[in-house]
């Protein structure tokens, strides 16, 4: 259970402090399945219209408008349609879906059934990262309870609508959070991305029209249906509807996951919710939305409002909601190296710029951090990053290049300070572990 911080606005997380909300009895006692009852009275188009009105944008990272995504699914299809829930949460800095899976699994189930009604699908899968085993078990239990009570299966609640959902475990692969790679994985293959178009709404899982949404996105649907799209939209600035879970980590006194309306000032989140910077240090840099987003220098970050459009104006992204705060004692070369180590490890190897580019960047960053760098290395790394950008099948290549470019750009001097045999000015004891 997590108690709300006084500055929080709990919509998606409203059951996080309600004991037993993860059981069907607890869920029903707290407005559970009221949205589904209401949605049964709507036409599919009316459901999609309500979601569009809410301004809900995907909470996984890309921020695509959810209602619009749903509207792309063809009404008639010779192939079965599917609703997929992306619970492969693996973007470094992001740990919010885990809490929804833990405290409110039925909200995800209810959101998926409503999505099924909206697009005319009868089957759904929840793809949960393999490391979250206790949550996969919990979800299986919730699904069974829903099935036993007639909220899943044939003729749900006597309304003539069939819908079945299963939980599905991943097995350790960041790339499987990419929608088309997830579908490959769900088909029992290596998680390699597909060339788009066709987009999943036309041809997704098993070639059928498919919508795939993040856990938090789907869990936002029941409150939107119950209270109306306008109600949800009113929480945030225009085109940035609603509230959102932010995962605060790094050099703050109190790390935590907080739900606030979009547009909330970052400064208040750090100072009032995060208890300020740890050890009274100054902020140097900010990761605004997970490890793939360009880092921002403190002076830009300090005045940031947390909504899609405000962050986009700085050249970065609101991304997955993973906010990582770096203080003045952080070695940016080491930080860049750790990010690249991750993307090199997770690159599926399918396309050359990503596979080769991340390997070369890791080698160069390791050399620079260890003091063996040459003057030419800084521009070389920039060039390699820019040659990955926009030249890969999926966004993983961009995810590796974008933070690297931003660090090289804003903290170039730190690289210079490492060159030509100089020891790391921050006294980092070890270089990042060897590739594995």
């Amino acid at each position: 259970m997590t108690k709300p911080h006084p500055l929080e606005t709990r919509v998606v997380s409203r059951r996080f402090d309600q004991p037993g909300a993860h059981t069907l009895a607890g869920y029903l006692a707290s407005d559970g399945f009221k949205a589904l009852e209401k949605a049964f009275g709507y036409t599919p188009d009316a459901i999609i219209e309500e979601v569009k009105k809410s301004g809900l944008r995907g909470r996984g990272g890309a921020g695509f408008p959810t209602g619009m995504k749903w509207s792309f699914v063809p009404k008639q299809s010779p192939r079965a349609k599917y609703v997929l829930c992306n619970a492969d949460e693996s973007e470094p800095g992001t740990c919010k879906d885990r809490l929804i899976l833990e405290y409110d699994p039925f909200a995800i189930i209810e959101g998926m059934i409503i999505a099924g009604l909206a697009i005319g699908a009868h089957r759904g899968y929840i793809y949960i990262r393999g490391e979250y085993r206790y949550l996969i078990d919990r979800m299986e239990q919730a699904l069974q309870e829903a099935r036993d009570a007639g909220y899943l299966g044939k003729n749900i609640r006597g309304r003539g609508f069939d819908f079945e959902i299963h939980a599905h475990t991943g097995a350790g692969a960041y790339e499987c959070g990419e929608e088309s790679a997830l579908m490959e994985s769900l088909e029992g293959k290596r998680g390699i991305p597909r060339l788009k178009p066709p987009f999943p709404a036309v041809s997704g899982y098993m070639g059928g029209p498919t919508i795939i949404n993040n856990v938090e996105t789907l869990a936002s649907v029941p409150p939107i249906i119950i209270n109306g799209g306008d109600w949800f939209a009113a929480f945030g600035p225009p085109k940035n509807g609603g509230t959102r879970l932010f995962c605060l980590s790094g050099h703050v006194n109190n790390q935590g996951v907080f739900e606030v309306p979009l547009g909330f000032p970052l400064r208040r989140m750090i100072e009032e919710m995060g208890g300020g910077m740890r050890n009274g240090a100054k902020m140097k840099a900010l990761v605004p939305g997970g490890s793939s987003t360009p880092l921002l220098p403190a002076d830009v970050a300090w005045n940031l409002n947390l909504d899609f459009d405000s962050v986009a104006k700085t050249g970065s992204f609101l991304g997955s909601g993973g906010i990582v705060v770096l203080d003045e004692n952080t070695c940016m070369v080491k930080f860049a190296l750790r990010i690249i180590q991750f993307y090199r490890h997770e690159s599926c190897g399918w396309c050359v710029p990503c596979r080769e580019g991340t390997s070369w960047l890791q080698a160069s960053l390791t050399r620079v951090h260890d003091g063996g760098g040459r003057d030419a290395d800084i521009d070389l790394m920039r060039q390699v990053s820019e040659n990955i950008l926009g030249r890969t099948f999926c966004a993983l290549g961009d995810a590796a290049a974008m933070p690297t470019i931003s660090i090289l750009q804003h903290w170039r001097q730190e690289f210079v300070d490492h060159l030509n045999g100089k020891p790391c000015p921050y006294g980092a004891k070890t270089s990042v572990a060897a590739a594995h």
Partner: protein
Amino acid sequence: METPFSQALEERMQALMARYPARRSALVPMLIYAQDEVGHLSPAAVKRIATLLGETELAVREVIGYYSMLRTEPAGRFHVQVCTNISCLLRGGDELMEHCQHRLGIANRETTGDGVFSLEEVECLGACSWAPAVQVNYDFHQELTPERLDQVLDAYAARAKAGAQ
């Protein structure tokens, strides 16, 4: 029917295959649950899963090679996975990894001589706001210091000892 799996796991695999429009979709879950029971994906386990799915062993191995949680060699009874990704890095993940190496006397991806512990540096575990984090088998241990990690490892060592008696 030759199988390295328990009756319960065989039944579970049948149920898994029935969940999807094509049984091949069940492959990754089948591999994970097989590994949980056997300890690793042994040649017999791979063969059995290939037979159940009507796929070649090569097709199954090709998938195993992609996923970082899947292994074809045994790990320790307690597999200690230390996250050193960005949020953990800023809160001492590297120090925890180093601490584990010293205490267990093994390097990354090695197993102790008695087979009780194995160690692996892993990517983000999704515990960023409770960093630094370590996962032992499927159990999360969060907001750790080297001292707290020692207590965690002590408890596992005691369990191994109790189990050996």
